[in-house]
């Protein structure tokens, strides 16, 4: 007698199904006479109870005969310390996840591995954040690679292979984009080839986005493909292609733009006045002719025909042209320094247009020398976008020096310039960290309602130099009237800096032997 047989009877109901019992079963046969036989349903349940207990007790474990997987090889590096491990687990659980990159960097630098319990979450993180993949690979050790081989979700950890290219052909849009981005980092040529293969079938709306991935590792090799994209039906695609070509100094697009623009500008050197005052001193200046028309060729090269941003149409064409023409070609042609060009441009009628065009060029071409030369003019114009772009083009030390000047307690508009701090995305030096700290302390004693700044405190916490982390707790204007508004931002900032301090301590302190 088995529970399964009794189940068949129970399913139909004892009203419909008789209960025929074979007393062959030794235990049940012996017990059956003791069971109250009065009603069939009670007898059925009594027998089921016996069977249930007997089958529960008599259950045998299953046999697994398939071969065991090859165990993971031993590690060649030691694990991170327990405190470091605890911090990692907290971040993987969602606390201050933005500091994960720092943990990974510190661990890799110290030659330490993430412990096995964190590996699945780390491997998961690599999917939405391809930019962390390389540093994740550095800390997951042999165990992590062993693990990743068993889960198709973690295929990225075992290198982009032909198999992964399936994602490009069959995946959803977001997956394809992530794949293309990461492949562009590891194998730029293959990424472009894949895009070219499917180009004709891509939705017009997707083309511009996919094309944008070529920004990573852009080389003259990409020019032919981009040049062809200039003829695309869709404006966004043409614009993206033109913007990328403009960043290739030797490209045909840049050459065309140079040819169009050079005749429009003339540098007139200054002449010193003579002692006899027969001749007046004349400052250097730039003579400018605006372009007459925006023809098809110019439009194809990405020039927007309409007027924009308070500039007339012709001036706007010129600004866009200046943006593309290599900055160093002006100084070379005219045999002057960037500072000379700035000085010459700022006196004349076209000062605003030239400043706009050239600072845009500074941003696009990442030209640090020109950025520095134009900075004072951008400050004078209090043009935040230009300032931000110029700062981005500078080397970290130069950027810090320039911005530190704007954040000084003596600067009247320091509050305004505070918005630029967030755009300094490099790791700050101790000196600059202290400048920002001082600025934060002063501002948090002022008006409430500056959400923009308060919301950035957390970002600042991630950029401070490690040496300064222990100096953050004191010196806040806790007695000010507006402190209630600021304290939330400051508390979060302090929590993050303390977390980072622990993070650095966990990797630098010698573990107790």
């Amino acid at each position, binding site marked *: 007698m088995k529970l399964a047989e009794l189940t068949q009877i129970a*399913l139909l109901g*004892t009203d419909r199904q008789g209960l025929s019992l074979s007393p062959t079963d030794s235990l049940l046969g012996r017990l059956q006479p003791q069971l109250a036989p009065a009603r069939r349903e009670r007898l059925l349940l009594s027998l*089921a109870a016996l069977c249930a207990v007997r089958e529960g007790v008599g259950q045998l474990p299953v046999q697994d005969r398939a071969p065991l997987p090859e165990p993971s090889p031993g590690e060649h590096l030691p694990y991170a310390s327990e405190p470091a491990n*605890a911090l990692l687990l907290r971040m993987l659980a969602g606390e201050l996840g933005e500091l994960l990159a720092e943990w990974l960097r510190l661990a890799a630098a110290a030659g330490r591995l993430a412990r096995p319990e964190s590996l699945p979450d780390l491997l998961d993180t690599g999917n939405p954040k391809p930019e962390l993949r390389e540093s994740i690979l550095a800390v997951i050790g042999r165990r992590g690679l062993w693990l990743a081989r068993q889960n198709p979700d973690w295929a990225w950890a075992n290198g982009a292979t032909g198999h992964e290219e399936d994602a490009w052909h069959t995946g959803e849009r977001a997956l394809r984009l992530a794949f293309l981005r990461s492949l562009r980092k590891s194998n730029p040529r293959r990424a472009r080839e894949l895009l070219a293969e499917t180009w004709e079938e891509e939705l017009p709306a997707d083309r511009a986005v996919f094309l944008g991935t070529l920004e990573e590792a852009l080389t003259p090799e990409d020019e032919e493909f981009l040049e062809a994209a200039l003829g695309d039906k869709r404006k966004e695609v043409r614009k993206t292609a033109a913007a990328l070509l403009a960043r290739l100094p030797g490209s045909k697009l840049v050459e065309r733009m140079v040819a169009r623009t050079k005749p429009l500008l003339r540098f007139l050197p200054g002449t010193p006045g003579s002692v006899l005052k027969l001749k007046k001193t004349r400052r250097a200046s730039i003579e400018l002719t605006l372009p007459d028309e925006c023809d098809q060729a110019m439009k194809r090269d990405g020039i927007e025909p309409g007027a924009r941003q308070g500039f007339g149409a012709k001036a706007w064409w010129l600004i866009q042209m200046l943006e593309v023409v290599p900055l160093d070609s002006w100084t070379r042609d005219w045999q002057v320094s960037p500072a000379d060009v700035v000085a010459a441009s700022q006196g004349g009628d076209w000062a605003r247009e030239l400043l706009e065009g050239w600072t845009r060029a500074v941003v696009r071409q990442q030209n640090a020398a020109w950025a520095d030369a134009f900075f004072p003019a951008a400050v004078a114009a209090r043009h935040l976008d230009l300032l931000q772009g110029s700062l981005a083009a500078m080397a970290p030390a130069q950027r810090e020096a320039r911005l530190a000047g704007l954040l000084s307690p003596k600067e009247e508009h320091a509050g305004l310039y505070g918005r630029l701090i967030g755009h300094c995305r490099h790791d700050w030096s101790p000196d600059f960290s202290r400048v920002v700290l001082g600025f934060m302390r002063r501002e948090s004693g002022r008006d409430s309602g500056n959400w923009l700044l308060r919301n950035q405190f957390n970002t600042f916490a991630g950029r401070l130099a490690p040496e300064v982390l222990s100096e953050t707790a004191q010196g806040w204007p806790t007695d000010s009237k507006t402190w209630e508004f600021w304290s939330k931002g400051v508390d979060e900032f302090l929590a993050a800096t303390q977390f980072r301090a622990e993070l650095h301590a966990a990797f630098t302190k010698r573990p107790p032997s």
Partner: protein
Amino acid sequence: MSWTVEQVLALAPDASSANSGRGLAAARKWETLGADATSAWGTFQGSGKQPYQTSIDLGGPAFKCSCPSRKFPCKHALGLFLVLVQQPGAMAEKAPPAWTAEWLAGRRGKEEKKAGNVPDADSPEDPQAGVEAAAAAARRAASREAKVTAGLEELGVWLYDLVRSGFAVLPGKPSRFWTTPAARLVDAQASGLARRVSRLDGVTTLGEHWPARLLWEAALLHLAREGWTRITALPKAAQADLRAAIGFTTSQEEVLAQDGLRDHWMVVAQVIEEDERLRTQRTWLFGANTRRPALCLSFSAGPAQPLDVSLTAGTTLDAELVFFPSAWPLRALVKHRHETRQPAACQWPHRTITEANDFAAEALTANPWIERLAFGFTAVVPVRRSEAWLIRDEAGHALVLDAPEEKAWRLCSLAGGRPVSLAGEWNGERFSPLGAWAEGRFLRL
């Protein structure tokens, strides 16, 4: 013993307390901080006029705080504990202040009293009052038993109806078809059986084997009903098991009055199950020498009623345990605790899956009402098969895991394809992993 951040956070009554506790885990936020070998204390300027005074008895652990929070442990206690774990150097004071010392002395005094069985000073001394109280208790007990008898009679009618008309008509029945008889059992003060019946709600959606599962459950309910009609004929221990299954409780004082069983009890696993109203914490222990299992339960009906935080998975306590009466004693209370420590290595009792299986068979033979048991394996390998995750022993015997993918992968990573020590709960069908020893460390899963 040394604590980890994870262990401390596991003491939090809920996620928001854990977060608030973390927020206070910075030495700079505290006015004073101190610790000695067995306790920690600190003062915290909260929103009140006076700073809050927070103390921790590390021997428990036990907590005391002067803040008005109804959560336990409160965020201050958790924050203080985290500071102790993460920044031990910040615990500047070395001698406990009076408010900590008094509380500690009070606690230790109480524990000694409990251990020494000193009768409470306010216990009734008037013999006449005692007799009257006993008579009243007997009347209450008789009335409850009558209620249970009536409730089980009604349960029987419902059960026999199910079997007569056949399970085939059940799919699509509304929820109340199952919850009504469950509610009637609650009224009849048979909460244990009520829980079993309410669990049947939705049984017809549980895959193709649902009729067998339902028959299994119905049969056990029937067994309880039949047993109750002749309970006096059963052996004492079986009576106790049946009464517990129906929902009778045994007073803790009665249990604590017994002699304790001293051993090094390894806390192998802990799990909290949340119901609509009730949180139940199951803590599983094994005696290192006696090899006996023990289950400590703790219940909480809301944030004001904290779960017991004195047992931490991965630790071993030298303690005396007392067991609730049963044919296969399992549920237990800690009667007296001598010392807690962090063991250096794992000595869990089940060397093979067959051994664990025999252990479960022995338990179920003695007490058919056991719903789950803990297994503590010394060496099993987690393996992923196309249909499920398994754990497997040297002989190739396997158990199917009951674990979300996330947890299964973490376990797989910990093991790296090699045997690990693994503890968890067995429900008769699947094994739910809860804690592992791998490479010399204990980890909650």
